[in-house]
């Protein structure tokens, strides 16, 4: 078994949106636009960014709650298989590009037409081959039966504790639904397991027979966490689990997640918009902006030496509990641009203080700098 628990490559997800309420014209919203992530067993990866940057979509794509358009989500992949499949994927991409230029030509010769035909066949064949190879560990090309078997290994904790629990079900049924479906526990044993989970998340055993509306926000989030733990998953995707809570309750939930990670041997993807929270709980942090990862680094070095201008402005926006704190950094101006019509070049350039001429023309590529940060920026500040 490899050390990598989950590996995401080239993940893309678009949504069709209408140009206006009365228009039949459809536009494409690129929520996630080519995201690569890798998680080691027992690690916590923080994903941070403003509303609309695609961080929630990434989390949902991992569980196939949204069906991604492209990319692969590898669960415990063999390194050789990944490289084999990605080679085929690359050749398919190259062929698709050639096909695109060919069919874009206004006049076509017979040779061109024949080439187009063979290209189409080859693409279809190679794609099918790659998917078949990948289907053992790629969640996106798996058969339904295998997906179901693997799904219990990835669970999710949702943002809004008021909307994510069924009001008609008692806590016992909410938490026990997964084990019952997978047949891991039943009858008395299931009751015992639910009680054990409730105790783990700090709820009294009497809570089992109550309805969600009888609990406060923090307690509901605990129920959501117990539900995610019920199938003893390897990975939990926490989608803004604390942003709807008071700071005092937020601290309780963060502490709970940290202690459960040790007890249940969990790997977390922790999604939030508040860098101080993400940085606190994560080993590594990925900063997202408009569907792309713009900086990835260890959480300690990310704070000590943020490279991307966007990361710097996110850090500047975090309020510091010290009246004497000098706030030299300034938060970014304006709002996130619409992902339907993102700015040209580097998508952050309209809000960036370090922009140079090239920024609005060329899309920067993710690259490693000398400190191990992976950033995509033409003119990174801080040396």
């Amino acid at each position, binding site marked *: 078994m490899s050390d990598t628990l989950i590996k995401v490559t080239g993940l893309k997800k678009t949504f069709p949106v209408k140009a206006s309420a009365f228009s039949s014209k459809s536009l494409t919203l690129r929520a996630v636009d080519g995201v690569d992530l890798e998680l080691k067993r027992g690690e916590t990866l923080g994903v941070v960014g*403003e*509303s609309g940057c695609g961080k929630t979509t990434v989390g949902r794509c991992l569980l196939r709650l949204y069906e991604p358009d492209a990319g692969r989500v590898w669960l415990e992949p063999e390194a050789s298989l990944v490289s084999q499949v990605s080679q085929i994927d690359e050749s398919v991409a190259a062929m698709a590009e050639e096909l695109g230029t060919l069919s874009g030509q206004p006049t076509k010769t017979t040779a061109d037409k024949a080439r187009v035909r063979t290209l189409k066949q080859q693409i279809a064949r190679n794609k099918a081959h790659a998917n078949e190879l990948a289907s053992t560990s790629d969640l996106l090309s798996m058969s339904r039966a295998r997906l179901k078997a693997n799904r219990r290994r990835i669970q999710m904790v949702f943002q809004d504790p008021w909307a994510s629990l069924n009001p008609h079900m008692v806590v016992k049924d909410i938490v026990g639904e997964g084990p019952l479906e997978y047949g891991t526990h039943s009858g008395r044993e299931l009751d015992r397991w639910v009680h054990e989970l409730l105790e783990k998340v700090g709820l009294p055993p009497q809570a089992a027979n109550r309805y969600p509306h009888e609990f*406060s*926000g*923090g*307690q509901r989030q605990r129920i959501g966490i117990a539900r995610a733990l019920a199938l003893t998953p390897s990975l939990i995707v926490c989608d803004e689990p604390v942003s709807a809570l*008071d*700071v*005092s*309750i*937020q*601290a*309780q939930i*963060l*502490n709970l997640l*940290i*202690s459960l*990670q*040790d007890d249940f041997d969990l790997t977390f993807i922790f999604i939030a*918009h*508040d*860098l*101080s*929270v993400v*940085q*606190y*709980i994560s080993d590594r942090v990925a900063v997202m902006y408009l569907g792309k990862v713009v900086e990835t680094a260890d*959480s*300690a070095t990310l*704070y*000590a030496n943020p490279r991307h201008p966007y990361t710097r*402005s*996110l*850090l*500047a*926006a*975090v*309020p*510091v*509990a*010290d*009246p*004497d*704190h000098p*706030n030299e950094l300034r*938060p*970014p*101006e*304006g*709002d996130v641009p619409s992902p339907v019509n993102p700015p040209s070049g580097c998508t952050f350039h309209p809000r960036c203080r370090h922009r140079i001429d090239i920024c609005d023309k060329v899309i920067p590529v993710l690259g490693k700098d000398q400190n191990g940060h992976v950033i995509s920026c033409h003119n990174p500040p801080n040396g």
Partner: protein
Amino acid sequence: MDKLLDVKGLKTHFHMHGYTVRAVDGVDFSLGVGETLGIVGESGCGKSQTSMSVMRLIPDPPGKIEAGEILLRGRDLLKISETEMRKIRGNNISMIFQEPMTSLNPVYSIGYQISEVLMLHRDMTKEDALKESVRLLKLVGMSDPEERVSEYPFQLSGGLRQRVMIAIAMACEPDIMIADEPTTALDVTIQAQILRLMADLKARTGTSIMFITHDLAVIASFADRVMVMYAGVVVEQAPVRDIFKKPLHPYTQGLLGSIPVLGEVKKRADGSRQLLNAIPGSLPDHRNFPKGCRFAPRCTKVMARCWEAEPALVPIEEGHQVRCFLHSDAVQETPAYAEVKRGQQRKWQRADRRAQNAGAGADTTGGRS
């Protein structure tokens, strides 16, 4: 500093079926001219109900301001008529609400919603009011205000909607602006923008601000004075530097410990995980407060006497008040009552009123309107 607003012994209770929720249970504070007061506490601690009482926006029934005085420049807002109160709302005291999505009317343009205030309070014509609206939108940092006035709330992002709310609140240049969790529903980046804007406006107009939040970090660089509330009472009140540098009440200390500090290393020296100093448990049931100190069940420094009697809010230093037996032995006069049954209610209210009368001398009816 001159006292602009002076709140004395405010009690706002909600009479539900068979029990009473004592949301605000004897709160005293004052607000100086040009001062920013931060009110901090968890959801349900009564901080919003305190501000709603000042605006007299408590739904009655079931709510009722049972006792106290709210003096605006020496005039008791609880004794004036509803018509007079309407002149004060928006004109002298205005409010920014937490949810910019739900507090703007979706069927009117934002220009109209700002103009409405101006036409009502400053007798402007429609044209003048619209011109003034454009100026106000510019003031709150909206780009293209001439075009934006005719847009509707759904066309704006959360941050921009909150800017519109601030423009409405600022329209009549009020003496006091009450901001009830104005940034809680927003992203941190937009929160930083809104805080910067409010600080700018305050510097420019000299408005006093009551800033209500659950996150102490938000007001660190913004407030002059901070009041920490817990279960309907003030537990600590001090200048902002004292609250952050030498918090006295265990609850304030717990709130500060709950905030993750940027750049703090997560691992301890021996490699184990560093946990936040969270406050255990949650707010007590409003129907059934503990007999002694209301914070006792969650307090890490609880002593035997904390379960027996409720401590009083006493000044420790210049401007620094705290309600805790660790710092003073003074006991709160009014008894904290356990489950208040329907039959007992009136008896307790009479007892309360007697205590109130004894304390405040000639004050007979307080907030009974």
